[in-house]
């Protein structure tokens, strides 16, 4: 039972990394239409090559669970994540396009996350594998409108409303996003269920500049369906030019002790 729950937790972490990675970066630019703003944000989701060292803090009912990890990504299609904290050391995930594998050191085996497992939400529903594997650009899935401008954490932001395009079925029917006018980083995002009920809010608490690029380095994801439940994702270190070999994103690498 513990092993199963622990495995679920790890799935959530990886899913969160993939999602937050999509929210995290931005470059300054001028944009006028909602579509252009969103395209800028979408472009930032494609961060090319990077190696992160990050901390994930999951809080529920006053209890914090801290996970440390190292992640190597290449665009939105490939990612390799390894947990480094004592309890989860050796647990690894590999994402290639829309496929996801997990290496669980206790079992010394690689498991492909597929079928109905992809629909499983972590701890119930926070982030599912499907969400993590979604690599469609937001402009392809949503009709976007500009609802105004508002400050968030001292940053003047565009307020964008995203509604799923007919025939497109993204995970969330509607989203509301506050995008920094200066940095094109999503400072805040509300995610809504089909019913219109707001289920999650992601808030950027820290943005740092790396060369010409702005990056959200601390993002808090509040699960509104659970009281006192949130996940904090902190990027401690990032290298935009890591050494990536053909083996980096391979099952062979995933299965290495």
């Amino acid at each position, binding site marked *: 039972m513990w092993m199963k729950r622990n495995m679920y937790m790890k799935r959530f972490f990886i899913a969160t990394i993939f999602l937050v990675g999509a929210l995290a970066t931005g470059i300054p630019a001028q944009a006028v239409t909602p579509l252009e703003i969103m395209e800028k944000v979408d472009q930032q989701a494609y961060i090319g090559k990077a190696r992160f060292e990050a901390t994930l803090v999951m809080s529920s*009912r006053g209890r914090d669970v801290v996970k440390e990890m190292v992640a190597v990504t290449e665009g939105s299609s490939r990612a390799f994540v390894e947990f480094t904290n004592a309890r989860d050391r050796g647990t690894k995930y590999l994402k290639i396009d829309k496929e996801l594998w997990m290496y669980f050191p206790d079992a010394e085996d690689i498991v492909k996350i597929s*079928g*109905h497992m992809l*629909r499983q*939400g972590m*701890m*119930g*529903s926070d982030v599912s594998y*499907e969400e993590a594997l979604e690599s469609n650009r937001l402009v392809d899935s949503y009709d976007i409108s500009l609802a105004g401008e508002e400050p968030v954490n001292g940053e003047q932001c565009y307020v964008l409303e995203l509604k*799923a395009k007919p025939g497109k*079925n*993204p*995970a*969330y*029917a509607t989203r509301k996003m506050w995008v920094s006018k200066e940095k094109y980083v999503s400072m805040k995002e509300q*995610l809504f*269920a*089909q*019913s219109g*009920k707001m*289920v999650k809010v992601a808030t950027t608490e820290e943005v740092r500049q790396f060369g010409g690029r702005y990056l959200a380095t601390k993002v808090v994801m509040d699960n509104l*369906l*659970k*009281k006192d439940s949130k996940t904090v994702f902190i990027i401690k270190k990032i290298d935009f030019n890591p050494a990536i070999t053909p083996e980096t994103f391979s099952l062979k690498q995933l299965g290495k002790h």
Partner: protein
Amino acid sequence: MPRQINYYVRLALKNLARHRRRTLLTVLAVAVGLWAFIVMDSLLAGVDRDSGRNVIDLETSHVQVSAAGYFAHRDELPLDKTLAAGTADSKLIKMIRSDSRVSGVTSRIRFAAQLNNGTDEFPVVAVGLDPHRDPEVFTLTDYIVAGRKLQNGEYGASLGKKLAELMELKIGDSFTLVMRTAANTFQAIDLEVVGLVNSPHPMVNTGMVFLPLDVAANVLGLDGRVTEIDLRLGGEEAVDRVTKDLRSSLKSSGFNVDVSSWKDLSGSFLAISQGKRLYNGIFLGLVMVIAAVGIVNSVLLATIERTREIGTLKAIGMNEGDIVRLFLLESTGIGLLGGIVAVGLGIATNLYLVNVGIDLTSMIGDMEVGYPINGVIYGVWNWTTMVVAFLFGLAICPLVGWWPSRNAARKDPVEALRHA
């Protein structure tokens, strides 16, 4: 010759009466074994019957019609294989109703969801049901122990009492049901608890949430479509026939559907039921051993105790065959008495089991035992089992009594008379 047999019968009866305590103990040993068999058979048959009823009344119905391919993936609760049968006047339902053996038809949407009480989440099977048509097929509303029945169009839910206790919900409380729509979009709706159910089916009590069909269809993006059509038949004996006939008639009418009987849909329960038959066989074997040990023990003791008596019998002219016959008659008498006592006790016990039953919750609490049953289990009347138990006792006693009685009869009369 008849006089001779009567003589031996009288002598055997006298012997049985003479050694009352030993006779009584042996009869009791045989009776207890046979009685246990009768009682266990009654309870297991009762569990079997009630489990089947629970599955039919609360889970599968007699026969289920679903979209082609649904049956193979039913455990995943897919929403991409549905039927246009959300209303009673749909063409498919009308055609099913035209079969005179079908007494009730309803539609349901079954889907995977998470029950969220604001603090915790619990995975459940959610069922959208038609509040008016569902009672034609299922007995869910008979087990509402608090609150009321569902109504069309309301954002209300009935859930198992134990599930409600687990999630700390009571009538009037709200919770959030989290799910994916048919288009795989995240969905979350708030529902008010309007009814609590305490049924004899553990799955209903601990892992299911019921909401109105129209609400479920709406929030899942399945307007007019359902995952299953459930049928109640006039009698259970018609299940296989109706399933077969519907498969052929619906196919020939152009409906591409799966038609499954409750037996098809509840494979795991039936596997347990088949396992039970093996268990019954083992139990019968144990009873045989108990009875045999009792008889052998009794006859051996009688032999040792009565060695001098055997010597006397041989001295007055009885041969080996006469003595074996005498001992076999005594064993048969024990079997006869044991059988009568066992059947008598079995009938008395079964009167209680059939009418009052045994409350399992006091013994095992909410522990799941693999059967779709909980609460009180009842026995059933099975006269064949009683006759079999009686005949078994009657046959086994002389069978196992033969060897020690033959040994006793072979003893030399002089040696036997000297026996201390």
